[in-house]
């Protein structure tokens, strides 16, 4: 009941006309960047961070949350009409939804994706409403050593456990951690890895890293192997579906939601796994398994719902523990830090208005997104026709503003170029970008918990095995590292020709 009272207070905040406007701006921007290739919600929130310094935190986060949810809705439009998944979680939609669109069922595919996203988003937000305060209540008592262990768990699951190449995921993480080390160490006042540049004493702003790796890296990479002709499927009118489509969709929507939310809420590495699971499940349950792979509506409805439910789930560890499990969540965490707020259990007590306003705005944003995406689907589809030379050039200009405005310094632009080249290399050599972003944002926090824990134990390292919760989590970390490796090794023995170690699609723009 407590949660309900707080939620009503949250709706008062979220329904304030100014905040409604920011929610509308957020969901519109989110859908826009979700549809446009080359740019995603993570990048958009990072670009907007410097700009929103003048907004009150509630309005800024309501807008960011809108961008986050909106990106999910927009992403499915692109996958269905363009048949090239922009994020790993959309692979299935691109496969099944595009086949539907090619059979002239684009409107139904878009409708089942949008309505499924709405249902999953709303149920996910409800679960968030009731789970988050309960978890926050427990989390208040967690000691620093266990917080450090939890960050380790997030690091390992995001970079190693569920990726295709754990080694490359971990290397990406360590790259992010190294970048996070640059600058003055706050506890001792010593400069680290500044190479004598005074500009580096404050560290590298993560905005530069994110924009470099995502926007510049992507632009360079696409330029190196550019597809000159885009095969966009035409859409007349809005997204609608018939009675039969409804009958076949509602089950997959609910099952997809049930699969997606827990995967998002546990620090378990994003939306890919639940979307794949949902696809397999629907194929097994379907009365028309022969349609799968040729455009089955269940194969769009289930995975899309799973994708969105996991997006809502991601907010649980972010708000209650301060643990981001996706790139966008990492940037939201950094945004909290820029406002001097630390997400985590205390946030619910110290900034209840903010948290509940944000959660309430998620319900409102979902309704707005449904209204924006069903009748206006055709308008969004037209965005896919923007000529690519002008689109990518525009992305580069906006990236430049976002970074230059941080300090008005050319030094930052040179850094941006360097990160752009690294981002290019990561795409070329199959290193996922998300672990690097998580490492940059969460690395300094991890170090600070590590040192606080050791200071409380007077330098005794055994604190990490004597504190029961810490030891338990670190044990799971070990399992998460070792078990998948063993399974992979056994699978390889059983099946002599070495399978290609990668699915090639590792760049989520969540």
């Amino acid at each position, binding site marked *: 009941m407590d949660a309900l009272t707080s939620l009503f207070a949250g709706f008062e905040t979220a329904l304030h006309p100014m905040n409604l406007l920011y929610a509308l701006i957020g969901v519109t921007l989110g859908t826009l960047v979700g549809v446009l*290739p*080359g740019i995603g919600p993570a990048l958009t929130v990072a670009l907007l961070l410097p*700009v929103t310094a*003048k907004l009150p935190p509630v309005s800024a986060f309501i807008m960011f949350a809108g961008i986050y949810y909106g990106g999910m809705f927009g992403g499915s439009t*692109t996958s269905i009409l363009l048949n*090239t998944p*922009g994020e790993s979680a959309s*692979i299935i939609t691109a496969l099944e939804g595009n086949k539907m669109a090619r059979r002239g069922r684009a409107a139904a595919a878009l409708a089942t994706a949008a309505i499924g996203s709405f249902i999953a988003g709303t149920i996910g937000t409800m679960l968030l409403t009731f789970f988050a305060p309960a978890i926050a209540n427990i989390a208040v008592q967690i000691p620093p050593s266990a917080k450090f262990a939890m960050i380790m768990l997030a690091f390992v699951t995001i970079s190693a456990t569920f990726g295709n190449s754990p*080694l490359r995921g*971990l*290397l990406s993480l*360590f790259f992010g951690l*190294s970048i996070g*080390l640059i600058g003055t*160490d706050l506890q*001792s006042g*010593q*400069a*680290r*890895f500044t190479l004598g540049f005074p500009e580096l004493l404050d560290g590298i702003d993560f905005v530069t890293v994110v924009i470099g790796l995502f926007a510049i890296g992507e*632009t360079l*990479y696409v*330029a*190196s*192997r*550019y597809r*000159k002709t*885009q095969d966009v499927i035409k859409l007349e009118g809005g997204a609608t579906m018939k009675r039969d489509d409804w009958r076949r969709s509602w089950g997959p929507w609910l099952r997809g939601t049930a699969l997606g939310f827990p995967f998002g809420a546990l620090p378990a590495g994003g939306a890919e796994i639940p979307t794949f699971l949902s696809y*397999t499940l629907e194929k097994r349950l379907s009365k028309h398994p022969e349609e799968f792979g040729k455009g089955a509506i269940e194969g769009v409805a289930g995975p899309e719902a799973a994708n969105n439910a996991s997006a809502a789930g991601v907010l649980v560890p972010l708000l209650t523990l301060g643990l981001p499990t996706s790139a966008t969540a990492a940037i939201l965490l950094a945004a909290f830090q820029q406002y001097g707020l630390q997400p985590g259990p205390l946030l619910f007590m110290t900034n209840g208005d903010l948290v509940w306003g944000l959660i309430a705005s998620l319900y409102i944003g979902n309704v707005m997104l449904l209204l924006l995406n069903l009748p206006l689907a055709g308008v969004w589809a037209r965005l896919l026709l923007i*000529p*690519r030379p*002008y689109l*990518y*050039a525009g992305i*580069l*200009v*906006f990236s*430049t*503003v976002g970074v*230059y*405005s941080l300090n*008005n310094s050319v030094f930052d*632009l*040179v850094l941006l*170029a360097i990160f*752009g080249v690294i981002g290019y*290399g990561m*795409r070329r050599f*199959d290193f996922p970008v998300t672990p690097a972003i998580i490492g940059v944002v969460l690395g300094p926090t991890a*170090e600070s918990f590590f040192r606080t824990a*050791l200071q409380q134990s007077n*330098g005794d390292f055994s604190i990490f095995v004597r504190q029961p919760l810490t030891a338990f989590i670190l044990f799971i970390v070990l399992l998460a590292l070792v078990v998948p490796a063993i399974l992979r090794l056994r699978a390889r023995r059983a099946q002599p020709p*070495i*399978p*290609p*170690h*990668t*699915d090639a*699609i590792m*760049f989520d723009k969540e």
Partner: protein
Amino acid sequence: MTQSPSAPPVTPARPGISPADLAVAIGITLVGVLLLLGTLKIPFGINAVVGPRVFPLIVSIGTMALGGLLTLNALRGDRAEPGLEEDTDPDAPINHVNPAVIMVGFLIGSFLLPSLGFVIGTAVMYFSVAYAFSERRYGLMVGVALIVALITYVLFTRGLGLTLPPGILKGIL
């Protein structure tokens, strides 16, 4: 995991060593070594139970170890599969000139930006990206570049209150 529809279906029975993959792996290992050397230059903190060196030490040794593993894999013929993005064609011939054009345009624009102003600087960048993406209608490119740069400037300075250098357009804007 389901196979992605676009991944190449077969791997050669005995793949040779890919020089590019090996170079990347060795490069990463070397970065780990450099990080370790950098770590040893950090002064010990005073009055701290855990000094500022401990965490960098873990990170640098970790990078070295993981880089070493990647090198071993590369020596065994492991090669990275280039990522698939919207707007990329996995079968297209790889073009290294286009990214170079973008980088050069970006750096020229960056260094011109403080003196000649934001509009000129970013217009140079815009032009270079459009050129790299095979657009050749020069008049249109210059026009759109200037208009986008100008709108961005006005939007961010007037609308959002950021300060960006006006450069040679000072007084006009």
